[in-house]
């Protein structure tokens, strides 16, 4: 399955792999999810290295692993197309633009942050960022409006915000809890039949 061939009957070259991912990394605003359609256009529609089903399989796998989705996705596709070196090249390509851009911005930001106008603008910006995070939570909540989902959300909120447990352990515990309740549910349903 490694070294897939495109519509032109050739394996993708490492340079082309690198620049394809570099381009997507450099011009996609709004994070990893915004990149998915671009990956699809480039690797499925344009060059035909992957078919649609394969593409969505990879996407689902990347979403169920921890980490940065764009990186996971790039490395996975890179490995499929050109093995380990391909994975490295793809991951490097997609991360490099943001890494460099942020370095430049961070260096400038710390020079101007004391400026009263910059500070005033950021006072407004901070409120919009809170609204942005709140909106992300709100959208995710709408997908989990069932009783168990609300219970888990409220429990997690209480454990992290009130009891002040560490999110790292709460995430692990909630994953385990989800697994156990699903299994118990299966056993109970099985027994009642």
């Amino acid at each position, binding site marked *: 399955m490694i070294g897939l061939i495109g519509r032109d009957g050739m394996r993708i070259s490492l340079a082309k792999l690198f620049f394809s991912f570099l381009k997507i990394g450099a011009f*996609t*605003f709004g*994070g*990893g999810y915004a990149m998915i359609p671009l990956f699809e256009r480039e690797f499925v529609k344009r060059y035909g290295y992957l078919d649609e089903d394969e593409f969505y399989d990879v996407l689902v796998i990347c*979403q*169920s*692993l*921890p*980490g*940065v*989705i764009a990186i996971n996705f790039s490395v*996975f596709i890179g*490995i499929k197309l050109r093995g*380990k070196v391909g*994975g490295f090249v793809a991951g490097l390509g997609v*991360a490099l633009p*943001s*890494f460099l*851009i*942020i370095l430049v911005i*961070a*260096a400038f*930001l710390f020079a101007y942050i004391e400026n*009263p106008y910059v*500070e005033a*603008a*950021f*006072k*407004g*910006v*901070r*409120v*919009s*960022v*809170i*609204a*942005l995070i709140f*909106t*992300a*939570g709100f959208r*995710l*909540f709408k*997908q*989990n409006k069932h009783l*168990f*989902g609300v219970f888990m*959300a409220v429990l*997690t*909120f*209480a*454990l992290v*915000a009130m009891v002040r447990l560490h*999110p*790292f352990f*709460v*995430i692990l515990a909630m*994953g385990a809890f*989800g*697994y156990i309740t*699903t299994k118990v549910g299966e056993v109970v349903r099985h027994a009642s039949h």
Partner: protein
Amino acid sequence: MLLIKLFFTFLGIGAVAFGGGYAMLPLFERMIVEQHGWLDRSLFLDMIAISQMTPGPIAINSATFIGFQIQGVIGALVATIGMITIPVILISLVSVYREPFKNSKVVQAIFTGLRPALVGLIFASVFSLARDAVFDLWGLILFFVFFGLLAVFRIHPILVILISAVLGLIIYA
């Protein structure tokens, strides 16, 4: 020593960062702002705004920014590499041994717990961050305006951030 601490902090974040982007901000906030005090809350919010307005994955932008703030270019590199190490190892394994993972009942069961937990986690970080940002009446009004623009009118986040910068200048300068 600081670099080693930086590496392992981001290694930990990367290991449990399910759900991508905004879902991993609560981890950042607890570990970077509260545990280590590497960024204060205002700068943390500024960083998120910058990550959103520049191209690339938000988590990479954040790791680079935080690492740079702590230890310059080397710090940025160490933080970014730390965060992607465990996920990239997992991805490499899964790309070879995919069959047991595909449509896995175990993974699905785990996610019935994880997905709603992320909701609680995100609201917990909103709760914690809002105390420092939305501190006056204007802040509260703006919060509801921005939430409306984002959730109801579906205005693009970058545009909302730009609007908020202009309003910040008008109100606070």
